[in-house]
Every structure is written in structure tokens, then in C-alpha cells.
């Protein structure tokens, strides 16, 4: 408000009494925030230069000093309410900064540690007969794709049809029960899903059975509720007018769903399914207990242990051989590959949602 007034001086010279009352309320100048930040950075930098510099202390010290200074200055000039407001603004903004630090740190760590073995050999060879240096995760990448693919193959139809049932048909107690238990399923810890697969196949095949399909079953338990939720949200926002128009033309309901409702929402559904795949492709715990790890390529999901990227990364890190370095390097590169896959899937999901979104006009 004062900014208006200072920019148009004639208003100040021709005041109405009330306006003057507001205008006279003192306010910190606009440069107070950037200026104060720069000043506290300089002061903290100087002090730290004397006692020994560290980036963490520098950032924390600057923010603390700036916050305190701004609060005191604002309290003196603007009053306590404004001062509290400014204090909260700084806190909320730095909270966001604080939340982003781990993301940046994770990505930096994984990239810097993982690049060492991000080479052709890593993507073209398995760990068969490899001790120490060399070797790769080709078998693990293939295993991850097979197991996740099978899981998607099972989860997508079930999830899609359930969502259709809940939105288009579901009424009464059954629909409410399904909604509730889908919520319950979202909360199943991934390790419990893995244990379920183990228990199931112990019963069916016998104890100690570890194979890729068991991992797919575990991942499906985790993936189905995500697919149902995402699809349900998308089906719900299809306008009812479209359904009614088609039904009024005499189209049977199942054709309305297949030809009108789903095509309208296909972008959102595809995007949701991609996100669901991204969510389960990095799951480690269920695959660790249900699938295990091998050193050689195995493309048969129904016979014998399979290697997967997350488990490969974990076991290389947790139980390295001698010397340790090559194992740790492979673990980090596997983590890097995994994070790239997940990020690409996330971007793909956003892209699908944007490009194939229904034209609204």
C-alpha cells in the first residue's frame, strides 16, 4: 500500500485523513530482505573465515542471523504482528529449502558415486564368474524388467476393471468394502507383500522356493491399489453428460464405458499406471525375500532365482567381496540406473498426461 503512495507523490501531498493514517504506518524498505540476507551472509562468512569455513554452518548461520535481524528490525519499525508474519515467511521458505536439500544431495551422491561404472560393460555383461573388478548388471536389468512387466500385466487389468466397477457399477456394501480394502492395501508394507508371496508359494510349491513370478505376485499386491486409485480418480472426472448422451443414443453401457468413458480419461489413466510402475520398480524388500539374487542371466520367471536391480544394488553394498571397491561401485551404478529409470517414468507420466489430455474445446 505504501508502495503505491511513494510512487505517486501527489497523493501524499493531497491526503485524506484516513489514508494518511495508513500511509504513515512505517514499513521496512523493499531492499530490507535482499539487503539483510546479503549482510548476514557477509557477516557469517567473515566470522567463519576466522574460525574455519564449512558450507553447512555458513548456510545455517546466515539464515539464523538473517531471521533474527529481520524479526527485530520489523518488530521495532512495523510492530509485532508484521514481525511475526515476516518470521513465518522466512521459516516457511527455508522449510522448503530444507526439504529440497536431501533430494539434491541424493542425486549428487548417486551420480558422483555411480558414474565410475556407468559404462558399456555394466550394461552388457552379467556377474557370472566375476570376482572383483568388471562385471555388470545386464542380468539384473533384464530381471527387473521381466518381474515388473509380469506384475504390471497382472495388476493393470485387475486394477482397471475394479476402478470401472467402483465408478460405473458399484453400489452398496460390496463397493464400500472394496473401497475400504483398497485403502487398506495401499498401506501394506512392501516387506509384508514379499512375505505373503513367500508364504503363498511355500504352500503351493514347497519351502525355500524363490523365483521371479513370486516377486511379480508381491509387486502386484503393491501395485493394484495404486492403479485402482489413479484410475478411479480419472474415471470420476469424466463428465456425466458424455455418458448420458451416449446412453440416450441407445449405446449399451459396456460400450459406453469402453468407447466413451475410458477414451476420454485414457491420458490420466496411462499416466497413473506409469507412476504405479515407477513406484514398484524400485521395490527392494519384497524381491529380496521372494526372488533372491543370482549372478547369471535367468529369463525364466518360473524357475530359479533372478537378479533384479534393487536387490543387486543392496547385496553388492551389504555383502561385498574382497576387494570391496568394485562391489560398492557396482552397487552405486545400479542405484543410478534405477533412479534414472524411475525419473524417466515420472517424466513420461507427466508427458502422457499433458500430450494426450482430452481437448476441452
Amino acid at each position: 500500500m505504501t508502495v503505491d503512495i511513494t510512487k505517486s507523490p501527489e497523493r501524499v501531498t493531497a491526503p485524506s485523513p484516513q489514508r494518511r493514517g495508513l500511509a504513515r504506518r512505517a514499513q521496512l524498505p523493499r531492499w530490507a530482505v535482499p539487503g539483510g540476507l546479503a549482510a548476514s551472509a557477509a557477516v557469517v562468512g567473515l566470522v567463519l573465515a576466522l574460525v574455519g569455513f564449512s558450507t553447512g554452518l555458513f548456510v545455517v548461520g546466515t539464515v539464523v542471523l538473517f531471521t533474527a535481524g529481520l524479526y527485530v528490525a520489523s518488530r521495532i519499525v512495523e510492530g509485532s504482528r508484521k514481525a511475526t508474519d515476516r518470521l513465518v515467511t522466512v521459516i516457511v521458505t527455508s522449510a522448503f529449502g530444507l526439504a529440497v536439500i536431501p533430494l539434491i544431495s541424493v542425486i549428487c551422491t548417486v551420480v558422483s558415486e555411480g558414474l565410475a561404472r556407468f559404462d558399456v560393460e555394466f550394461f552388457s555383461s552379467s556377474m557370472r564368474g566375476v570376482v572383483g573388478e568388471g562385471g555388470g548388471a545386464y542380468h539384473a536389468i533384464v530381471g527387473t524388467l521381466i518381474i515388473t512387466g509380469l506384475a504390471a500385466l497382472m495388476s493393470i487389468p485387475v486394477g482397471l476393471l475394479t476402478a470401472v466397477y467402483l465408478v460405473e457399477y458399484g453400489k452398496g456394501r460390496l463397493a464400500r468394502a472394496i473401497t475400504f480394502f483398497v485403502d487398506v492395501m495401499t498401506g501394506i508394507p512392501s516387506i509384508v507383500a514379499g512375505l505373503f508371496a513367500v508364504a503363498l508359494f511355500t504352500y503351493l510349491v514347497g519351502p525355500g522356493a524363490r523365483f521371479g513370478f513370486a516377486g511379480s505376485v508381491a509387486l502386484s499386491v503393491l501395485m493394484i491399489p495404486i492403479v485402482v486409485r489413479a484410475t478411479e480418480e480419472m474415471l470420476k472426472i469424466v463428465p456425466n453428460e458424455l455418458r448420458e448422451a451416449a446412453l440416450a443414443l441407445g449405446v449399451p453401457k459396456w460400450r459406453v464405458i469402453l468407447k466413451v468413458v475410458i477414451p476420454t480419461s485414457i491420458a490420466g489413466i496411462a499416466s497413473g499406471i506409469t507412476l504405479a510402475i515407477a513406484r514398484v520398480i524400485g521395490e527392494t524388500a519384497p524381491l529380496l525375500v521372494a526372488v533372491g539374487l543370482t549372478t547369471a542371466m535367468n529369463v525364466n520367471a518360473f524357475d530359479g532365482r533372478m537378479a533384479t536391480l534393487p536387490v543387486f544394488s543392496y547385496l553388492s553394498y551389504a555383502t561385498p567381496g574382497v576387494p570391496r571397491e568394485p562391489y560398492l561401485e557396482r552397487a552405486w551404478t545400479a542405484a543410478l540406473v534405477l533412479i534414472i529409470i524411475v525419473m524417466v517414468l515420472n517424466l513420461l507420466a507427466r508427458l502422457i498426461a499433458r500430450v494426450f489430455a482430452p481437448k476441452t474445446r
Partner: protein
Amino acid sequence: MSTETTPATAGAQRPTTVKPVVQPGDRIFAGLAKGAGILILVVLAGVAAFLVAEAAPAFTAPATDIPGGAGFVAYVVPLIFGTLLAAVIALVIATPLAVAVALFITHYAPRRIAQALGYVVDLLAAVPSIVYGLWGAWTLAPATVPLMRWLEANLGFIPLFAGPVSATGRTMLVAGVVLAVMILPIITAVAREVFLQTPRLHEEAALALGATRWEMIRMAVLPFGRSGIISGAMLGLGRALGETMAVAIVLSVSGGITFNLIGNGNPSTIAANIALQFPEASGLGVNVLIASGLVLFLITLAVNSLARYIVNRRREFSGAN
């Protein structure tokens, strides 16, 4: 359709409504959809049934056969303690931060970049847990050793920071911080959702009465979003309780119940214990681990049901606004 079986309804409707034509395609499709829904119920029942069936030997076996030699309860109680402790640390750190981040995205960030910032926070949720585990053990744990030394020196009189500080930094506190990072995006997402639903008129009314932005948030946004924050925190808690790999990698475990967050001897969590022990387990050991998994399942089930209950109760009331 069949007038004989439901004469009352069919008879009442006959004069006014035309019998709808139900094609076989319709019936098949509806049946398929319903079948998929029922399949989900069957799967969930199967999860519970198979876990109980495989866990049963652990409950009936003589106490001396259980690892530790003192029965299943003595085996699982320290694990439950560790699970709850790690999850509570994560929750205490993540909830205020998540509320602040959600407020930043909904009410402080410039409108144009707010959505992009939301994506950035969502990316935190996309990072696989194994990567968080490696990061926590490799980068975060060594980096926090000086901080924990400081805590021991200055706040050592609090039992939580009694020390002596673990030299590797792989402590309960660091595990809690890693879990906090992992559940932050979940709580943020729920909080963001409810903050955005705050009635615009409430906010504008507060501002029009001369409230500063913080006063507006405190008077209009936070009361409206309180149940959302609570349920988001509960969902985050459910995730933190069940998180496996990050804890398994970060925490250096040596059993025993202790509140010392920065020392060497940390209680394990149920999930991490399963991941660490399962590859070598056999015979009754497998049953014991599955039984502990069943306990974890029940705990997360209770927490998540409570969260959903709060969300749903709120949904019913929010229609009136």
C-alpha cells in the same frame, strides 16, 4: 427381470417403466468388473490367511526354539519398540516440515512456479527406498557425526542424546531422519490438498479484516486443514513403520531396548530385521520372521485405518462448507 422372484418391486414398476434391455455384452462386462473387485478382496484375505498360516508355528513352538531362546514375545517386543521409535522420530521431524512446505507451495510461492515446486517435492517420493538407504549410510551418516557429537556434549543430560556417539553415524537418529525425508512428500501431498480446499471466502474475509498473511493462515487455513494434517501424518506414520531397506542399510543393529538415539547399540525394526535375517533363515526361523511380519501388518493396518477414518469423517463434514 424375473417377476416371480421379486413381485413387489417388479409389479410396482411395471406400469411406468420399460424393462431395460440388458445385452449379453453388458452382463459379461459388468461381471468382469465385479469379479476384479472381488478378486481384490480375495487377495487381501489371502494375504492375511497365508501370513497367519505360515506364522502359526512360531506361536505354538516351545520358547527355547525361537531365536533368543525366550519365546516369540520376547523376540518381537524389542523389534516393535525399534519400529515405533524410528517411526516416531521420523514423524516428529517430518510433520512440521511438511506442513511448512505445503504452506509454502499453496500460499507463499509465486503462483506461476508453485506447481513445478510441487513436482519437485513429489520427486522425493519417487526415489526408491534402496537409494535412500545407500545415501543415508554413505553421505548422511558420516556428515551428521559432528552434529551428534555436539548434541552429546551440550544436550547429553537428556537420555535421548546420552551417547557415546557412534563413530560410523549409523544411529537411530539418522535412520529417523532418512525416514522423515521419505515420508515428507506423503504428508506434504495430503496437507497441500486440504490447504488448497480452504474456502477462498474465508481467506479473503480474514485478509479484508486486516489480518496479515500468517494470521490469515492461522485463522482460516490451519483450522480447516487440521484433520488433513493429522491424517497425512498418520499415512506417513504407516509408511515409516513399514519401511524396510532404508533402515536395514542405515541402522547398525545390536538389539536391546534403549532410548539413546546416537549410540552404537540400536534396536532393529521389524521390517529391517526381516530383510536382514530372511536370506539366511530356514525352518522355524522363517515362521518367526513371517510372524513378526504379521505383527507389523496389524500395526500398520491399525494406523492406516485410523488415518482413513479421519479423512472420511472430514469428507462427510466438508460438504457443508
